[in-house]
């Protein structure tokens, strides 16, 4: 810098700081800064802060002291936490299987030519487009213990004699939130897989048909292997999102009845934000990190293998 300061500049010449940006390497760095800043602010900072919180006994308004892994020890001995872990796995597992099966089926149907194709494709996306909280409120009313329209319908169709206690019974409440998640997630699968299907040349299928392959064989030996990389990415996204799901459960059941439908995120929210024990809340939400990390690694490795093949 000392040398630079002794230089004499012609009036109007660019300053050295800006000249530095003429260098492509510096420019590349500067252009990356906004992304880095955003990732740092909204992902790295909260994550590190979460880790720091989870090893203290911080409460709302009280910074707390370092307590090591006491919070983790506490939550692993907590029955509600164990229920939440179990629920999260069941919720993610069941919904992913159904979303994939129904989404693939829908994608195959939409991939055919029929009248009103564009309209139907747009229409299918509705559950995905409506803000989740709004649509979940509608579902909450449909499952309302007293005023359920589903019960009304089933009763008037003569299928039930009493009332189904959708959100008041622990098992039925779990089934209810699973139904809503599937309803909301199928369009994402359908549209993504449809995009994948459209990249597969129809000639392959036609050639196989000429060779005498049956529809099921054409699907299994041609469509499915070619669609696999897209499917894996879609499943990966869905698993991550479902695992950390919050809105549906928060609106529909609030984790009830008696904590029977809590997931990681809703339980962490109840403890951390509701009761204000930030440290325990952070520990609960961090507990899902190793699982998600493992899922991501396995799936990414698998995707790479499929792509290399």
């Amino acid at each position, binding site marked *: 810098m000392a040398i630079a300061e002794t230089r004499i500049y012609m009036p109007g010449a660019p300053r050295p700081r800006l000249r530095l940006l003429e260098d492509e390497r510096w420019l590349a760095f500067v252009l990356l800064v906004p992304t880095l800043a955003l990732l740092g602010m909204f992902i790295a900072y909260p994550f590190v802060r979460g880790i720091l919180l989870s090893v203290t006994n911080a409460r709302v308004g009280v910074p707390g002291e370092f307590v090591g892994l006491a919070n983790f020890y506490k939550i692993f001995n907590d029955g509600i936490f164990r229920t939440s872990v179990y629920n999260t796995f069941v919720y993610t597992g069941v919904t992913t299987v159904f979303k994939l099966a129904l989404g693939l089926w829908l994608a195959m149907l939409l991939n055919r030519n029929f009248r009103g194709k564009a309209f139907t494709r747009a229409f299918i996306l509705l559950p995905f487009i409506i803000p989740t909280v709004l649509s979940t409120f509608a579902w909450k009313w449909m499952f309302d213990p007293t005023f359920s329209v589903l019960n009304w319908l089933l009763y008037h169709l003569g299928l039930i004699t009493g009332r189904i206690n959708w959100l*008041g019974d622990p098992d039925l409440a779990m089934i209810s939130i699973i139904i809503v998640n599937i309803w909301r997630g199928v369009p994402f699968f359908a549209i993504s897989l449809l995009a994948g299907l459209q990249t597969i040349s129809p000639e392959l299928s036609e050639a196989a048909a000429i060779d005498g392959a049956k529809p099921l064989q054409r699907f299994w030996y041609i469509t499915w292997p070619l669609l696999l990389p897209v499917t894996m990415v879609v499943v990966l996204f869905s698993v991550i999102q479902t695992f950390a799901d919050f809105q549906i459960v928060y609106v529909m059941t609030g984790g009830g*009845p008696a904590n029977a439908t809590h997931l990681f995120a809703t339980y962490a929210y109840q403890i951390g934000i509701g009761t204000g024990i930030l440290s325990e809340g952070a520990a609960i939400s961090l507990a899902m990190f190793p699982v998600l990390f493992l899922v991501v690694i396995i799936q990414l490795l698998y995707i790479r293998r499929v792509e290399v093949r």
Partner: protein
Amino acid sequence: MTTVTRRNVLKGGTALAGGMAGILASGRAPAFAQGTTVHWLRWNDFVPASDQLLRKELIPAAEKALGIKINLETVNGNDLQPRVTASVQSGSGPDLIMVFNNQSALYAESVVDLSDLAEEVSNREGGLYKYSRAVTSDGKKFNSMPWTIVGAMNAYRKSWFEEIGVTKFPETWDAYYDAGKKLKAKGRPLGQAVSHSFGDPPTFVYPLMWSYGGKEVEADGKTVAINSKNTVESVKFMTSFYKDTCDEGGLAWDDTSNNRAFLSQTISSTLNGASIYIESLRNPDKYITEKGAQLKTDILHAPLPKGPQGQFGLHTFFSHMLMSYSPNQKAAKDLLRWVHTPANYEKWFISQKGFATPPTAQWENHELWGADAVMDPFKVAGKLGQAPGYAGPAGKKAAEVLTKYIIVDMYAKAIQGASAEDAVKWAEDELKKIYT
């Protein structure tokens, strides 16, 4: 036209990044110089007329009298606590926040002591009730300013009880059980939420536990005492009471559900504030009984029945916290003092039509109480209420038990099929984590 060059864009970007860095470094949202605005966060009142009165009359008057702007925000009651957490942690948010029961004890480090205002109101209005002090003060500091008590009483259908031969509301739990069983058999069950909602669930289960002689902790505030024969008995009673007399949807109800169920005439009795009756008064022709009469003429109120060890009540308490992060503490406190001035508070009190019982004794003599005999039981809610945390203090730990819904969940677990002993044991384990 201005030419956008790469350099201009970069310069702009650097300035923006610098600005954000400044905000992050100061740890505070930018404050803009303008007239003082007090941000006041309250629940969506179950008596909507009171929120209208605040917005249309009281707030404009306060703005004029105090020379400030007031931003009144109302949210669902269950969302208040999350808002407190978010505001305290970010160091910015509403200046005044309403909280329920003894919740302000949880935020003692983040609120301004309101002892002077509380004592001022107490001295002027015949004294704060013991209950009002227990839930807002630790004996040295008022964490929040007592605002009101929403008395919890059973709203019940007079004619439906008469039809099963019950002319006076049952005085004991056993008698209430017998009546409820007959009513449920006629398709008119009792209704009770046993869920994570701030009002109805705790106001039912705490008094039930107390009336059987159960308590969460000894008077020392340390020795967990819930696992007793008495608590187990109360849980056993609740299990059969719920199955045989109640609308079983209640496990998924919140504080508004029983209002809807009662007004749509699917339940015969429910523990509630007076909001059901008040709504039936407000829209007399909308709510008509099966006999063609106005529903308001068929509603009466009664306290929860007696148990083997006495009769108790837990009434939802409302108070306002003045947040210590607030840059407008003086203005916010002036506003609190202004709304607590008898002439202003009275307008609000009257608009509640008895739904709210003030936290001081003098209001028991107000003419509002004589105007409608149906509302009479609510008059003394503040005098008779017992604070959560009994037999210990109603402080931070009791507030944590309450906001984690441990006592509520103990009953809910048993209703869902756990044995009474297991449910109580579970609650004992949870309480020990908090109290020891």
